[in-house]
């Protein structure tokens, strides 16, 4: 038994991380802020990296990757705070289409020409509805939008639009999107913690870097521990969903709660370490923090996911012993 990522998965992760570090620095976020938030050149770059077609099966011309690899890449997209609708299109929309056997639009998706928006009752809005070629609901693929009104969002790089009546509540869409939201929060938390520690090394007060003070060290260490123990939970959820494990919804909910808690703590820690600088718009930290606020509420908020864990754990359906860690789950639904 080996629960580590494979060398191929690590190489894939590192290449995407490197590409985004180079092409999608914080300066991009500042440029997009107030300028519509989207840039076809960024989308094209993500397509050229293979991200738009990553989950399309090889016999349909894609890379044939699974939800585990998608979650690993979603961490990187969260780390870089990418705002293009790549996750909704390629990591949620395409798996939903494949599961339904809707392969008619795969050729256009292969060309990176289509953007998918997701409509679900769990969300009171639809992200990137205005640029969507397809709107995916529980039971239909709807066409592009007719000039929907943009809603005011806390995150200046999120583009949100009102819900539509046909959304429905496809559970696979919810679980996949919740998993990807959790993955992005893990990446964002990592990025914010790095910003906090980088700043603590250079900001000097009382004649020394503030990172040399134990109070600052302990804040950062506490956030790092929370994050460290959210990662394996996320990866386990991704594997469970990929394998259609009966406990996948429970594991996804655990991952969403763990990632939310880790990311919120990382955000608050990073702001605190930055002090008054962190309270300004000049420091880029706020883009990641606002993204975490958005993702924490999207695709089932903390209360929703905690209720699912509650129903399984305290509700009594779940065998709880230590020998059940990697249970097949065949014993319950």
């Amino acid at each position: 038994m080996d629960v580590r990522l494979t060398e191929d998965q690590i190489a894939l992760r590192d290449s995407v991380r490197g590409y985004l570090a180079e092409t999608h620095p914080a300066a991009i976020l500042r440029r997009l802020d107030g300028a519509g938030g989207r840039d076809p050149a960024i989308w094209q770059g993500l397509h050229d990296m293979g991200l738009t077609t990553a989950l399309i099966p090889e016999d349909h011309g894609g890379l044939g990757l699974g939800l585990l690899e998608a979650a690993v890449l979603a961490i990187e997209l969260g780390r870089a705070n990418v705002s293009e609708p790549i996750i909704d299109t390629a990591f949620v929309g395409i798996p939903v289409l494949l599961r339904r056997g809707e392969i008619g639009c795969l050729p256009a998706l292969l060309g990176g020409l289509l953007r998918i928006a997701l409509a679900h009752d769990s969300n009171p809005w639809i992200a990137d509805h205005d640029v969507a070629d397809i709107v995916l609901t529980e039971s239909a693929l709807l066409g592009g939008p007719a000039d929907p009104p943009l809603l005011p969002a806390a995150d200046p790089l999120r583009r949100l639009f009102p819900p539509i009546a046909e959304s429905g509540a496809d559970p696979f869409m919810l679980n996949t999107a919740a998993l990807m939201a959790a993955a992005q929060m893990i990446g964002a938390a990592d990025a914010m913690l790095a910003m906090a520690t980088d700043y603590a090394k250079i900001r000097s007060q009382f004649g020394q870097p503030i990172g040399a003070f134990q109070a600052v060290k302990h804040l950062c260490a506490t956030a790092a521990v929370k994050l460290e123990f959210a990662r394996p939970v996320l990866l386990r959820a991704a594997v469970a969903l990929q394998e259609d494990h009966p406990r996948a919804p429970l594991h996804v909910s655990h991952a969403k709660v763990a990632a939310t808690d880790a990311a919120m703590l990382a955000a608050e820690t990073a702001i605190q370490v930055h002090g008054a600088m962190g309270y300004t718009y000049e420091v880029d930290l706020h883009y990641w923090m606002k993204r975490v606020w958005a993702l924490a509420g999207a695709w089932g908020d903390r209360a929703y996911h905690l209720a699912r864990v509650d129903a399984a754990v305290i509700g009594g359906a779940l065998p709880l012993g230590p020998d059940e860690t990697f249970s097949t789950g065949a014993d319950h639904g």
Partner: protein
Amino acid sequence: MDSHAPAYRYLKTLESREGFDAHVRWERELAAGNWGMVTWPAAYGGRDLDLIRWLIFEEEYFRAGAPNRANQNGIFLLGPTIMEYGTAAQKSRFLTPMARGETIWAQAWSEPNAGSDMAAIRATAIQDGDVYIINGQKTWSSRAAYADWCFGLFRSDPASTRDHGLSFILLPLDSPGVTVRPIRQLHGETGFAEIFFDNVRVPAENRIAGEGEGWNVAMATAGFERGLMLRSPARFQCTAQRLVELYRAKAGTASPGLSEIVLHAWMDAQAYALNTYSVASTLQAGGKIGAEASMNKIFWSELDRAMHRAAISLLGAAAELRAAPGETDWLDGYIFSLAGPIYAGSNEIQRNIIAERVLGLPR
């Protein structure tokens, strides 16, 4: 486990004389079935199992309700240290009786003025021919009042300071010149002891690794302590399971908010298990764990305390009474959980280590 462990399920605490003796009987019963330390080579009383199989063994061990290990300082800390730094002669001399529960070990590191600041150690071991002459005092040594041997860290170069000039030396606690004075702990039992050394003569062959190399050996031991071995996840998963069962029984009268704490206990115990399987996979593939071990130690110790505090809250006024025989003694567990964030390097020290060695913050 199911045919042997139930008789040992509700022993008196390991910190009492009577409880300790019962736990040692369990050690011997385990050893009789060759289950004393399953990851060790068969030549030393083990079963040559890999770490993943050790985790599975631990899951079955705790699932069956088997008790905590009387020889945990030996098998989980000193054992792996000897495996890494000991000579062939030391391995065959010390490991087999350790796995068989015949020699129970205590750790003699802390001193009255060297707790978190372990490099402030003052007790000396001065070489005189082929023996060391040991003088000084150790303290807060768990179960030293009942143990047979101790592994200590002593200053072998009297001119040295801090982490230089220390040596890692093993000695019997009944050596002439050793005085063990029990210390009463929170729960009223005397599981702690001070150890006084007055010209105690110890053969030089009892030193692990070279003279003056004790600090590095001790850091490796501490790594085992904080990392994988000392607290396998099954223990916490069982506590979480019992906590969920207690919550179900008390849900009608539980204070609002406790359900979330109980759910977090279950989720965090799961997270700890998943992380441990990941660490075990890394180690098996030839990787190392470094300062990340400090994250482990913080996580399990604070989880354990939170779970026991939740249980105490659920019990309400009933928590004031000691548990009847055959019931989970949550108060005793809570008291023990308070030690978790202190022993094996306080969690404040662990946070410093994480900040400096994982996050790269300045010293």
